[in-house]
C-alpha cells in the first residue's frame, strides 16, 4: 500500500493552496503505515484496517492547514526560521545558528581558523613592519621639508661621504631655496668614565643639524654655532637613563669618548636620534673653511624654504657648488673624476628607507599572495561543504527563504568564522611581532616605529572581513541558482547530483590551479633570492670567510696611547701565534669585510722620466701574519715579515688594483711617501710585494687601491682605538674561540674583547643580514604556499574520487583496468597542476623584474630556478595525486555500485 501517494492526494486535492512539505507527507505516511500494521496485528482484515487508516486520513484532511504551516525543520542541524519579525532579530538568529554550526563541526572550524590565523597573522606582521617603516610620519617635526643632499662630479659619486665641504660652504653662505643646511657623519667612540667601557655610535653634526631636524632637548641645551669646536656631548635619553639613572644632575658632568673628556650639555629623546636609534648621542662637528687642496666629505641635509621645491634646491646647490673653489686633485681622488658639480636632493623619508622599500613591498605582495592561497583554500573547503548542505539550503528556499536570505546566512557564517580567524590571526601577529624585533637586522631603518598599532588592527579587521566575505559569498553565489527539485530528489546517486557535484569539483580545481600558480610565483621568488644569497655568501672575496676567526678588541684612551696599542697588539699576536691549534694570527686596522677606513691622496715619484702619478689609495696597518691568516697570496715580490723593523728599510705591500691602476707591469721598487701616517713619518717606503685583492661583495664600492704597511715600522702607532685580529686555525675555528679569549686576557687583563666569530658569521650578522632575512622570509612563505596547495589538491582529488565512486565502479565493471582508473585521477590532478605551473611561470617572468635590484650574480630569468620550481611543484602535485589515485584503483566494482 502506498500511503505516501494517498496522503499526498488527500491533502492536496481539496485546496488550491501550495502543496504540503514532502517531509510532512512522509511523516504522516509513516504514521498511517504504523497504524495499518497495528490494526492488522490486532486481527483486523485488510479492508477493516484500511478503513481505520482512511478515517484517520480524513481527519488530517480537515487539519491540513495546521500541518502546512508548522513544518519547518527537516534536517538535524536546524537552520533559523525563514521569516522573522525584525531584521535585527533574524540577524541574531543567523549568528546564533552559525555559532551552533561551528560548535557542531569543530574540525572544520578549527581548520579554517588555523588557516586564517597563519595567513592573517603573517600578513598583519608584515603590514605592521611596512606601515612602521614606510608609512608612519617621521619623528622629526620638520621632516616633511628636509631633503638629503648628494653631490656628484661629472656624474660620478664620491667613494665615501656624500657631500663635500666646498659645495657645503659655498651654499651655506648664499642660499635662497633652503632655510638651513647641516653636515653630519656617524662616529664610533669608546665611552668611559661611567661604568663599563662600551663602544657606542654617535652622530657628529653641525649645530645647524638640530635646527634642520627640529630637535629639542629633553633637558639642558644643544650646541650653538659657536660650540662646534668645543668638547661637548648631547646624550640620548636611553643612554642617560642607563648610565646616569636619568639624573638631571648629569648636565655639566664629563664623560670620556675615546679618552677625550666631553661635557654633557643636554639630553634628547630617543625618537629623534638621527639617522636612527643606533646613534646614542651627538657630538659637535665643524666644517673647516677651504685651505689648499683640503676637502672634507660628510653627509648633508637641508630644510627647504617655504615654497621652494626639492628640484629648485638641487638646481641651486649645483650652481653654488660649481662656483666653489676648485680642489682638483683631491676631488679627483674622492670622486674618481673632476667633472662639473651636480647636487641632487631626496626627501628625507625616501632617503632613509630607500634600501628597504623595494624588499618590503615585494615581501608584502608575497605574503598577500599567501593570504590569497589560504583564503581560496577555505573557499574550496566551504564549497565542498556547501554541496553536502545543498538539501538543507534547498529546503529553506522551498519554505520561502529568499536567495538573499540564504546568502546572508552563509555570509554571516563566513563572517563569524572570519572573526574567530581574525582573533587567532592577531594573536599570531602579536607573537610574530615580538619575534620580528629580534630577527630584523640591527641597522634596519625605523625598527622602533614598528608596532601593532591601531592601523595594524584596522588592517587585520579589514583583511579578515574581505577574506571571510570571499569564502562566505563564493559558495553562496555558486548555490544561487539552486534547483530545488533536483536538490531534494538528489540522493547522492542520481546523474543530476553527479553533474552538480562535479561542477563544484570543477570550481575547486580552478581554485587549485590558481593556488599552484601563486605557489609557483612565490617559489620562483624564493629560489632567486635564496640563490642570490648563497652566491653572495660564497662569492669570491679573495679569502674564505668561514675559516677565519676574527675578534675586535677596543683599546680606549687614556690608558692606551697609539704606541701602547701597537705594543699590546704585538703581545697578543705573539701569544696567539704560539697557541696550539692556531696556524696564523694577524692584526689589521680595517676588517676585510667592508671597504671602510680612510683614503689618502698622494703622488708617486716619476719613473723613467715619466710624469708624477696622482694616487688615491687606502693605507692599512697590518702585522706580517695578516696575509697568511686571511689566506691572501702574494702575486709578486714578497710579503711583509718580521725582519721589517723600525731600523730596517721601510717597505709596503700594495694590492693588485693598486699595481694595475698605477704601476703597470713593474710594480716592485716604486717608492710611496710615508707622510700618510703623520706623526713625523717622512721619506718613502718601497713597494716590495703585490697581494691579491680583497673584494667587497654586495657593496656598491668596488675594490680600492690599498697599501699595507707593517705595524713594526709605523712608529706613530695605531690611531684607531679598536684592533681587529684574524686567526686561522688548524682545526674547527669555533673550538678555538674560548682559548683565544683567554690568550687575549692573559696578554692584558684590562682588555674586553668583543665577540669571537668567524668572518662568515660576521658577514651574516652585518652585510648579509638583510639578504638572508628576505630570502628566509620568502622561502617560508613559499613553503607554506606549497604545503597548502599540495594539501588542497589532495583534498579536491580525494573528494572527486569519493563523488565519482559509482562512476568509477561502473567503469571498472565495464572492463576499465586499474591503470585506466589511476590515469583518470592523475590526469585531472596533473592537468590542473600543469596549467597552474605554466601560468605561474609566465607571471613570475613578469613579476621578477621587480626583484632584479635585490639579486646578486643571479639573473631574474635564472634557468636553474625555472627548471627546479616546476619540477618541485609537479612532484608535490604527483604525490598529492597518488593516494586518491590508489583509492580509485582499489575500488571494488560491486561495492562501489551498491554504495
Amino acid at each position, binding site marked *: 500500500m502506498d500511503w505516501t501517494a494517498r496522503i499526498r492526494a488527500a491533502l492536496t486535492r481539496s485546496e488550491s493552496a501550495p502543496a504540503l512539505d514532502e*517531509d510532512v507527507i512522509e511523516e*504522516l505516511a*509513516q*504514521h498511517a503505515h504504523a*497504524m495499518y500494521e*497495528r490494526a492488522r496485528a490486532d486481527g483486523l482484515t485488510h479492508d477493516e484496517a484500511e478503513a481505520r487508516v482512511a478515517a484517520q486520513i480524513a481527519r488530517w484532511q480537515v487539519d491540513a492547514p495546521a*500541518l502546512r504551516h508548522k513544518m*519547518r*525543520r527537516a534536517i538535524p542541524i536546524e537552520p533559523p526560521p525563514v521569516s522573522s519579525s525584525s531584521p535585527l532579530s533574524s540577524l541574531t538568529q543567523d549568528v546564533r545558528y552559525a555559532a551552533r554550526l561551528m560548535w557542531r563541526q569543530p574540525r572544520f572550524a578549527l581548520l579554517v581558523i588555523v588557516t586564517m590565523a597563519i595567513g592573517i597573522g603573517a600578513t598583519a606582521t608584515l603590514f605592521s613592519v611596512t606601515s612602521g617603516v614606510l608609512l608612519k610620519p617621521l619623528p622629526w617635526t620638520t621632516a616633511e621639508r628636509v631633503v638629503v643632499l648628494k653631490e656628484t662630479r661629472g656624474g660620478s659619486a664620491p667613494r665615501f661621504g656624500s657631500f663635500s665641504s666646498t659645495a657645503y660652504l659655498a651654499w651655506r653662505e648664499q642660499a635662497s631655496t633652503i632655510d638651513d643646511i647641516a653636515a653630519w657623519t656617524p662616529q664610533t667612540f669608546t665611552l668611559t668614565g661611567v661604568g663599563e667601557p662600551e663602544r657606542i655610535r654617535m652622530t657628529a653634526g653641525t649645530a645647524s643639524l638640530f635646527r634642520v631636524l627640529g630637535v629639542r632637548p629633553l633637558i639642558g641645551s644643544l650646541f650653538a654655532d659657536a660650540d662646534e669646536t668645543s668638547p661637548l656631548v648631547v646624550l640620548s635619553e636611553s643612554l642617560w637613563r642607563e648610565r646616569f639613572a636619568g639624573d638631571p644632575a648629569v648636565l655639566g658632568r664629563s664623560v670620556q669618548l675615546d679618552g677625550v673628556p666631553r661635557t654633557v650639555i643636554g639630553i634628547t629623546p630617543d625618537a629623534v636620534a638621527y639617522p636612527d636609534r643606533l646613534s646614542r648621542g651627538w657630538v659637535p662637528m665643524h666644517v673647516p673653511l677651504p685651505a689648499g687642496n683640503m676637502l672634507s666629505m660628510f653627509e648633508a641635509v637641508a630644510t627647504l624654504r617655504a615654497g621652494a621645491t626639492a628640484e629648485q634646491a638641487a638646481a641651486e646647490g649645483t650652481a653654488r657648488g660649481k662656483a666653489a673653489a676648485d680642489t682638483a686633485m683631491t676631488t679627483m681622488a674622492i670622486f674618481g673624476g673632476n667633472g662639473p658639480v651636480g647636487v641632487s636632493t631626496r626627501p628625507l623619508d625616501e632617503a632613509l628607507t630607500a634600501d628597504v622599500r623595494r624588499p618590503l613591498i615585494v615581501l608584502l605582495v608575497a605574503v598577500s599572495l599567501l593570504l590569497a592561497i589560504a583564503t581560496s583554500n577555505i573557499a574550496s573547503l566551504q564549497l565542498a561543504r556547501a554541496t553536502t548542505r545543498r538539501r538543507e539550503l534547498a529546503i529553506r528556499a522551498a519554505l520561502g527563504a529568499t536567495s538573499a536570505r540564504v546568502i546572508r546566512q552563509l555570509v554571516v557564517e563566513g563572517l563569524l568564522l572570519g572573526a574567530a580567524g581574525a582573533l587567532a590571526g592577531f594573536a599570531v601577529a602579536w607573537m610574530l611581532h615580538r619575534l620580528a624585533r629580534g630577527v630584523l637586522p640591527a641597522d634596519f631603518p625605523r625598527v622602533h616605529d614598528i608596532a601593532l598599532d591601531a592601523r595594524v588592527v584596522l588592517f587585520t579587521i579589514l583583511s579578515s572581513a574581505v577574506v571571510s566575505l570571499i569564502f562566505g559569498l563564493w559558495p553562496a553565489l555558486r548555490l544561487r541558482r539552486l534547483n530545488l527539485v533536483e536538490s531534494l530528489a538528489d540522493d547522492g546517486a542520481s546523474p543530476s547530483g553527479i553533474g552538480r557535484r562535479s561542477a563544484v569539483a570543477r570550481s575547486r580545481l580552478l581554485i587549485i590551479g590558481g593556488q599552484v600558480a601563486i605557489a609557483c610565483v612565490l617559489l620562483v621568488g624564493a629560489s632567486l633570492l635564496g640563490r642570490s644569497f648563497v652566491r653572495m655568501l660564497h662569492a669570491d672575496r679573495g679569502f674564505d670567510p668561514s675559516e677565519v676567526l676574527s675578534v675586535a678588541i677596543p683599546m680606549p684612551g687614556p690608558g692606551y696611547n697609539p704606541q701602547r696599542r701597537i705594543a699590546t697588539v704585538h703581545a697578543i699576536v705573539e701569544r696567539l701565534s704560539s697557541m696550539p691549534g692556531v696556524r696564523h694570527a694577524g692584526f689589521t686596522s680595517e676588517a676585510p669585510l667592508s671597504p671602510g677606513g680612510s683614503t689618502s691622496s698622494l703622488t708617486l715619484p716619476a719613473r723613467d722620466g715619466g710624469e708624477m702619478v696622482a694616487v688615491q689609495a687606502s693605507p692599512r696597518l697590518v702585522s706580517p701574519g695578516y696575509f697568511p691568516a686571511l689566506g691572501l697570496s702574494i702575486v709578486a715580490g714578497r710579503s711583509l715579515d718580521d725582519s721589517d723593523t723600525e731600523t730596517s728599510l721601510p717597505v709596503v705591500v700594495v694590492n693588485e688594483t693598486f699595481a694595475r691602476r698605477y704601476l703597470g707591469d713593474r710594480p716592485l721598487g716604486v717608492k710611496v711617501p710615508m707622510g700618510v701616517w703623520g706623526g713625523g713619518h717622512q721619506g718613502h717606503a718601497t713597494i716590495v710585494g703585490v697581494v691579491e685583492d680583497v673584494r667587497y661583495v654586495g657593496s656598491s664600492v668596488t675594490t680600492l687601491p690599498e697599501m699595507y704597511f707593517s705595524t713594526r715600522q709605523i712608529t706613530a702607532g695605531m690611531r684607531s682605538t679598536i684592533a681587529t685580529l684574524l686567526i686561522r686555525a688548524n682545526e674547527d675555528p669555533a673550538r678555538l674561540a674560548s682559548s683565544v679569549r683567554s690568550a687575549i686576557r692573559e696578554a692584558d687583563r684590562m682588555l674586553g674583547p668583543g665577540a669571537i666569530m668567524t668572518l662568515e658569521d660576521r658577514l651574516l650578522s652585518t652585510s648579509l643580514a638583510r639578504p638572508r632575512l628576505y630570502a628566509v622570509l620568502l622561502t617560508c612563505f613559499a613553503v607554506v604556499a606549497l604545503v597548502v596547495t599540495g594539501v588542497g589538491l589532495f583534498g579536491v582529488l580525494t573528494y572527486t574520487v569519493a563523488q565519482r565512486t559509482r562512476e568509477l565502479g561502473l567503469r571498472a565493471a565495464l572492463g576499465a583496468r586499474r591503470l585506466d582508473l589511476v590515469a583518470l585521477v592523475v590526469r585531472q590532478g596533473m592537468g590542473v597542476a600543469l596549467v597552474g605551473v605554466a601560468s605561474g611561470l609566465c607571471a613570475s617572468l613578469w613579476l621578477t623584474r621587480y626583484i632584479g635590484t635585490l639579486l646578486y650574480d643571479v639573473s631574474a630569468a635564472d634557468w636553474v630556478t625555472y627548471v627546479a620550481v616546476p619540477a618541485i611543484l609537479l612532484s608535490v602535485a604527483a604525490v598529492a595525486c597518488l593516494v586518491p589515485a590508489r583509492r580509485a584503483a582499489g575500488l571494488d566494482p560491486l561495492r562501489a555500485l551498491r554504495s
Partner: protein
Amino acid sequence: MGMDSLARELKRGSTEILILALLEDRDRHGYEIAQLIEQRSEKAISFHVASLYPTLYRMEDRDLIEGRWVEKPGQRRRRYYRLTPAGRKALASQRNVWDTFFRGLNRVARIRHA
C-alpha cells in the same frame, strides 16, 4: 465551564508535558508517541493525530524537541524526535508547575493524583 470544555483545556495544556515526558528516556517517532499516550493514560487521553503533529512541529520551533530522519535497513524512513536541553529544562519546570497545581487541588478538592 462545562465538563467537556474543562477536559479540552486540560488536554491542551498537558499535551506538551506528556510529549516531553515520553521523550525523556529515549527518542520516539510520532506514531509511538500517540500510542504511548493512549496506553499509559488508559485511553483517558487520546489524540487526534491532526493535533499531535502540529504540536510536535510547534514544540520543535520552540527548540524543545528536535526531529531527524533515521533510516534503518529494511525499514521505511522514520522521523524520530528527541529532547533538546531546552526541552529538558521545560519538562522539569512544567513538572514543578503541575505538581504544585495538583497538590493545591488536592488540598482543596481532595483529588488524589497518582
